[in-house]
């Protein structure tokens, strides 16, 4: 209960912050700032609800045309390099999900004209979990996963 209240409070203060910063700048309206950002997907607590919010479905189809490059053991959960490469034709988007993070949805890359099926970034991971890459193409969701072990102490166990 307390936790729920805190979350509402946080949401409220974040929104208020965005509004005042944008008004201060006098250039951007808050609506423009948050235009396309799918708040519900990034605040979802489970992989399925995050996918529902972002893609409208969580029907994943395993695919061997997606490869994830991430370390087997990450010494520092704050910086885990992840690359996703896919040979699926015309990918619409590539999303990276850390399954056991408080909010699993980590990043979603929407591909424009000419974009190739490759993205690379660095993510934070709270604990050992699988990293899931979801590729949307042709209205379908394809996915593959990779287990990444996180040693929080950072001693390389």
């Amino acid at each position, binding site marked *: 209960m307390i936790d729920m209240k805190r979350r509402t409070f946080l949401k409220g203060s*974040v929104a208020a912050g*965005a509004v005042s910063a944008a008004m201060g700048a006098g250039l951007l309206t808050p609506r423009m700032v948050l235009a396309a950002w799918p708040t519900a997907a990034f605040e979802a607590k489970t992989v399925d609800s995050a996918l529902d919010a972002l893609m409208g479905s969580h029907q994943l189809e395993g695919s061997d045309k997606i490869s994830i490059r991430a370390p087997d053991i990450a010494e520092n959960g704050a910086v885990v390099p992840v690359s996703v490469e896919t040979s699926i034709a015309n990918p619409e988007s590539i999303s990276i999900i850390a399954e056991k993070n408080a909010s699993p949805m980590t990043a979603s890359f929407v591909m424009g004209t000419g974009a*190739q099926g490759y993205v690379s970034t660095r993510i934070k991971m709270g604990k050992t979990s699988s990293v899931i890459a979801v590729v949307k193409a042709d209205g379908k969701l394809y996915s593959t996963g990779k287990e990444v072990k996180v040693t929080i102490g950072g001693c390389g166990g």
Partner: protein
Amino acid sequence: MASIKIRAKMSGDVTTVKALIKHPMDTGLVKDKKTGKAIPAHFIQEVTCEHGSNKVMTAMWGAAVSKNPYLSFKFAGAKAGDTIKLSWVDNKGESDSAETQVS
């Protein structure tokens, strides 16, 4: 505010864009050790990359992207000397952008 380092390199007809952005990426879950209060969430929500008028990539990020984020992707259709523009917007409405030439 030069918060972005960006490079775009072409090999064959595919251009690889690499960018480093300087940003705290606070999740809102971490507590300040001195005051005991939570550090408010402050993270980049959207990164867009444009080649001319074509939006080649739009990245939507949550707070779980690492501090000082790194980003790399590839696209086809650019020529050497073309301008690539990368810009970001965070949850406080702050933003920045940078341009580079494809080499």
